[in-house]
């Protein structure tokens, strides 16, 4: 066992897949010589050479387009968005082209688009976004969003091996904050499409993913100590396809649901989850399905304003306390 950070676990996953399968290659801005803006690919160029770790021009559309072509030709590209905020420049490639390739042309597109997302780091509106909702609506894509070091590693490896395009979202606030003991020499694979019970509980369920999973766990701990409320926390891990069975199971167990995500509220994934619960487990609800999310505003730079806009542990505690007493 060795203690590794979220970032290191991700790096290991990429490394192992590069070692395992020579079809796997990385492309993106500053991923080669510089080793990536957050050093995820540090040392890769030296080990695997510039033909498998390719520095590209600053064009997300070109990066995704090139990756798609390589995937069609039998390679396994991992395209990095230096900040996931700029994936919007590749929106057309991903939604119109990549996501539809199998349906339109019978073309397999086994590629991963990954990049740092999320706030709590004073990054402002261009370096803090969570783009999952924009892509959740696109049939043909898969979206994974790990919260633990183990899943950071397990999901990057599973994504690379998947035969379809996967959007891999990695929260930069977790990069070096999350440390975990991972076994050495054992292959870690996290199946895509399976949620994980991060904490068992009886009185209400919090469904979350990414950075807010940790804030939800903190809130659960506080509620247990201060109120004696037993909170279950479900880590979705994969957003598309969503693990309905796990969601319904936790609803049937606790009968009250709070959905927490860092993304803004309107059109956010919480709405989709709430709709599925209504459709599949309405009669098991003992209270309204509640949400704690970011406000519907661009994320401000000012620390006080960022703290206000993003969901904090205290916000989750308050909402859960209200729901528990409903």
């Amino acid at each position, binding site marked *: 066992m060795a203690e590794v950070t979220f970032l290191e676990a991700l790096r290991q996953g990429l490394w192992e897949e590069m070692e395992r399968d020579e079809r796997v290659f990385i492309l993106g801005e500053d991923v080669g010589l510089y080793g990536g803006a957050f050093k995820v690919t540090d040392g890769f160029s030296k080990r695997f050479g510039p033909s498998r770790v390719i520095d590209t021009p600053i064009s997300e559309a070109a990066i995704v387009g090139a990756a798609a072509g390589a995937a069609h030709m039998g390679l396994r590209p991992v395209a990095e968005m230096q900040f996931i905020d700029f994936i919007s420049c590749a929106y057309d490639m991903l939604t119109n082209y990549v996501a539809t390739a199998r349906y339109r042309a019978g073309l397999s597109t086994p590629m991963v688009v990954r990049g740092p997302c999320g706030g709590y780091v004073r990054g402002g509106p261009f370096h803090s976004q969570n783009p999952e909702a924009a892509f959740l609506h696109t049939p043909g894509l898969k979206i994974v969003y790990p919260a633990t070091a183990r899943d950071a590693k397990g999901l990057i490896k599973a994504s690379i091996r998947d035969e379809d395009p996967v959007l891999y979202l990695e929260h930069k606030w977790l990069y070096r904050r999350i440390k975990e003991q991972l076994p050495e020499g054992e292959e870690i694979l996290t199946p895509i499409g399976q949620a994980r019970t991060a904490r068992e509980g009886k009185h209400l369920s919090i469904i979350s993913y990414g950075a807010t999973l940790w804030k939800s766990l903190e809130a659960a701990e506080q509620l247990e100590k201060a109120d004696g409320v037993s909170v279950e926390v479900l880590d979705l891990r994969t957003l598309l396809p969503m693990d309905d069975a796990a969601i319904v199971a936790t609803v049937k167990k606790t009968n009250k649901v709070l959905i927490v995500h860092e993304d803004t509220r309107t059109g956010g994934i919480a709405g989709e989850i709430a709709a599925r619960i209504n459709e599949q487990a309405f*009669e098991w609800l003992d209270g309204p399905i509640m949400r704690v999310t970011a406000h519907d505003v661009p994320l401000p730079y000012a620390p006080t304003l960022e703290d206000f806009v993003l969901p904090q542990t205290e916000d989750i505690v*308050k909402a859960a306390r209200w729901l528990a007493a409903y």
Partner: protein
Amino acid sequence: MARVDVLMPQMGESIAEGTLSKWLKKVGDPVKRDEPLFEISTDKVDAEIPAPAAGVLAEIKVQQGQTVPVQTVVGVLETEAGAAVPAPAKPEPPKAAAPPPPAAKAEASKAALAPPPPVGPSARQPVAVKSGDGDGGVQTAEQRLRTKSTPLVRKIAAEHRVDISRIPGSGYAGRVTKQDILGYIERAPTAPIPRPQAPSPAGAIEHAVVEPWPGDRVEPWSKIRKITADHMVMSKRVSAHVASFFEVDFTRVAQFRAKAKQSYAERGVTLTFLAFIAKACAENLRKHPIVNAAVSGDSTIYRADVNIGIAVALDWGLIVPVIKHADELSLIGIARAINDLGERARTKKLLPDDIQRGTFTITNPGGFGPFAGIPIINQPQVAILGVGAIEKRPKVVTAADGTDSIAIRTTGMLTMSYDHRVVDGADADKFLADVKKLLQEFPEGAV
């Protein structure tokens, strides 16, 4: 695959038939054991009938609105097909015991009783959570009840046949929570709750909607209010109401009553004027069968039994329990029956059978002081007797030698509304004259 017959149950000992008022499931619907399957109604009470087994409703043999003898097969359940029916949210029987709410939790819920809208950055916007009682008077009682319970609680209530409104709620605005209902079920095993039901008149009764003025209070009807309202309008609509008034001298009865009151009380019976009046009616109804009758289509049903309904005013409405075979009871038997039915009406312990099969009704508002009143017939009967205040009044009396004088006598008005479709004035007045005669010449030996 087994087939299980669903039977029309016998609700009450004297019941020979029942009306299937509503199927709660369609053919092909999956049904859980003991889940409400259909509703039946008798004179004034209806009940939900639970499924005898789990399965699928395979056949409906008796349609809604049909009246059939008890033990008639009304439908058929296919038992093992139940498993094959897709049940998207297949409910499992809830655990008998709820997880005990942690002690601190109750405090939290109290502290939050005037809840700030749920929080979280974005929950600072208005949220779609309303407490159950802020919506004014436009909802029906059922809707208001629903706002106070969650889907889970309603499901548990249906499975256990629990009336949610009876459970004290600990949630916001008195909402019944999962813990509340599970605790309630654990403490008190539940039985089907018979609830009163509107008779099925010719056509549904609609009551006009009136706009409330500012400051008015709008109170949705309770079930019993609704039934009464519908029934009264229906009765006025279907019967040709006529009324006759008879003044009765109760002086003799009052003397007997004063004399016998104590000995009756020692036998646990309160002797009232009403008992004498009911006795006088019971004695004469068999002599005047047209007053002890019902209208059915273009025919008259002459009732074989004399069953007298006694209207009982309750704080929450009006109910009419029935003294069965009143003509076979002595005065004390009738008095005892009136005491007993009244008491059980007030304590909500009447059985469905207690308010069925009346053939004639007496309503006695006299205690409240009216000189006389004109009651509305209790359908499908054809006559109802109203009793006015019984008090001392000046009366002209004629002595044996023919001289008149004014005396102080105890008198009261008897009013009878009757259905002129079948009861003519002469019939009604002959009956009333006989009742009056018996009351004024009440045999001492009968007391």
